[in-house]
């Protein structure tokens, strides 16, 4: 084989490798599209029977009654309540901890604390749910003398703990990415460390901190097993935090096993998943945008 042929052979080889790798890389996109297609193909038949506004704003979820009532407003509100409740715990704890880790923590302590946070992220959601069921809910039941310990409040506490790791690591990343020169400039005009954090570092990392909070919210809305086990499961419009609620995720998980394949109930669970997917999808894109913003600024 002469050298020209050899060069062509190598070139062809190189290109085929690239093409194969590209096709494999497309798989993620393919799966995402697959998810969207499955959800819509299985979910859209719901709207032959109920209108979109009846579905989204209907106040009753009785999928097995005759005729079925398929209003998911209580489920949307259930998800919203536990998410807001969890964020009330998780935002201050997460952001404050991130500030501590990024600004105040000695290096040695950091080496210990970061794995601890990662461990918190590693605990499976079903274990959190189990813990909430057997330890936390009896505790809260006695503490507030409630009829049941399985409430939106209980779920919020556990979900808050679960959201903390992603909030902390994203927020810490954002704070650490603020250039040192910003801090030095602030110190040099006589600001204290706290003034520097409050007036320079935090404003400079707003977009990253926003991304952290939204990421946490996305985690909580999509969380299934924990809320299934400890939020109580009542599909009613919540009026208090100390009341059982039922989220969109828990409804899908609890009822899919019983819904006959192809029935209206079955399709309506996929329709709930469409709503859920769209919410998390939008949150993700928002996180992406915010993260890009602070990454480009650093450069």
């Amino acid at each position, binding site marked *: 084989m002469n050298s020209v042929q050899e060069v062509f052979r*190598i070139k062809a*080889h*190189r290109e085929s*490798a*690239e093409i194969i*790798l*590209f096709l*494999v*890389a*497309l*798989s*993620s996109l393919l*799966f*995402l599209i*697959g*998810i969207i297609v*499955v*959800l819509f*193909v299985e979910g859209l038949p719901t709207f032959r029977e109920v209108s979109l506004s009846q579905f989204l704003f209907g106040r009753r979820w009785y999928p097995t009654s005759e005729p079925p009532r398929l209003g998911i407003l209580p489920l949307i509100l259930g998800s919203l309540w536990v998410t807001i409740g969890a964020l009330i715990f998780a935002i*201050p*704890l*997460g952001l*404050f901890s991130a500030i*501590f*880790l990024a600004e*105040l923590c000695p290096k040695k302590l950091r080496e210990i604390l970061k794995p*601890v946070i990662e*461990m*918190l992220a*590693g*605990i*499976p*959601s*079903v*274990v*959190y*749910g*189990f*813990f909430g*069921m057997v330890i936390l809910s009896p505790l809260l039941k006695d503490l507030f003398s409630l009829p049941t310990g399985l409430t939106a409040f209980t779920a919020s506490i556990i979900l808050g703990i679960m959201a903390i790791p992603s909030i*902390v690591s994203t927020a810490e990343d954002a704070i650490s990415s603020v250039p040192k020169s910003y801090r030095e400039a602030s110190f040099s005009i006589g600001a204290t460390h*706290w*003034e520097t954090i409050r007036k320079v570092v935090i404003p400079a990392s707003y977009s990253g901190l926003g991304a952290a909070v939204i990421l946490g919210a*996305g985690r909580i809305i*999509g969380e*299934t097993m924990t809320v299934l086990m400890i939020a109580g499961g009542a599909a009613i419009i919540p009026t208090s935090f100390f009341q059982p609620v039922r989220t969109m*995720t828990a409804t*899908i*998980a609890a009822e*899919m*096993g019983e819904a006959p*394949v192809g029935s209206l109930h079955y399709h309506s*669970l*996929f329709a709930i*998943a469409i709503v*859920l*997917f769209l919410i*998390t*999808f939008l949150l*993700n894109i928002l996180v992406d945008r915010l993260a890009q913003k602070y990454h480009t600024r650093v450069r």
Partner: protein
Amino acid sequence: MDIRLKTKYLSQKIWFFIFFLSIATICFALGFIIYFLVVRGYKVINWEFLTALPSRGMTEGGILPAIVGTLYLIIGSIVVSLPLGVFSAVYLEEYAKPSPTVTLLRLAIHCLAGVPSVVFGLFGLGIFVKLFGFGVSLLSGSLTLGIMALPIVITSVEEALKTVPLSFREASLALGATKWVTIRRVVLPAALPGILTGLILSVGRVAGETAPILFTAAAFYARGLPRSIFDRVLALPYHIYGLMTEGTRPEKQVPIAYGTALVLLIMVLLVNFLAIYLRRRSRSARKW
């Protein structure tokens, strides 16, 4: 010191203390959870608990099928996510030039990572269980979990590839190796610790997931170990859920659930520790 300066420093002290308290609270919460699970769970765990089949409608006996089922699901998901993840990451890091397609790909990976686990379950149900006709089985569950783990694998392999210095690639190319040979013989071996870390992280995630296998693989009652990839399997996380919500003898099932939760927790935390350790070691050992 004048009074304004004093209040300034006082408020700094108070705020810094609040920051410290926050992270202390988080550590306390973690300690609290682990403490309770260990204290109530360790009594249940013994050799028989780990190696026996459940008996009397899940109120006695061990959890062997759940352990085995979880291991099978882990292996199955790795078979799916490792090749797809490594090749995708190699393409994105080594070949891809900035283009709209690549931007779209990265966005897709990012979005896939944020899809709620229960939605993955529905996807698995729609595609693998129904459309492909695999039924509720180990195969369907592994495919679903593998796809769920894919973004984790891709992201960590990309990180690993980024740490391999450009000079390695240049040296290999200068010797006349093609790009693909360079990747296979030089870049991937150098990135191996990072790839392993990503793989282990995904194992930790897969082992604990329940929602994706609810409708694709999991069973609560089973006679024995799964015999083929088309069998339903028990899995540790689903077993905990089943023990707490099904059956009629909670006084006997809750202790088993404690034991199962502790086994799962130990497994997942060990896996996570291994990942952290490997990452740290590969960082400190890297002298290039």
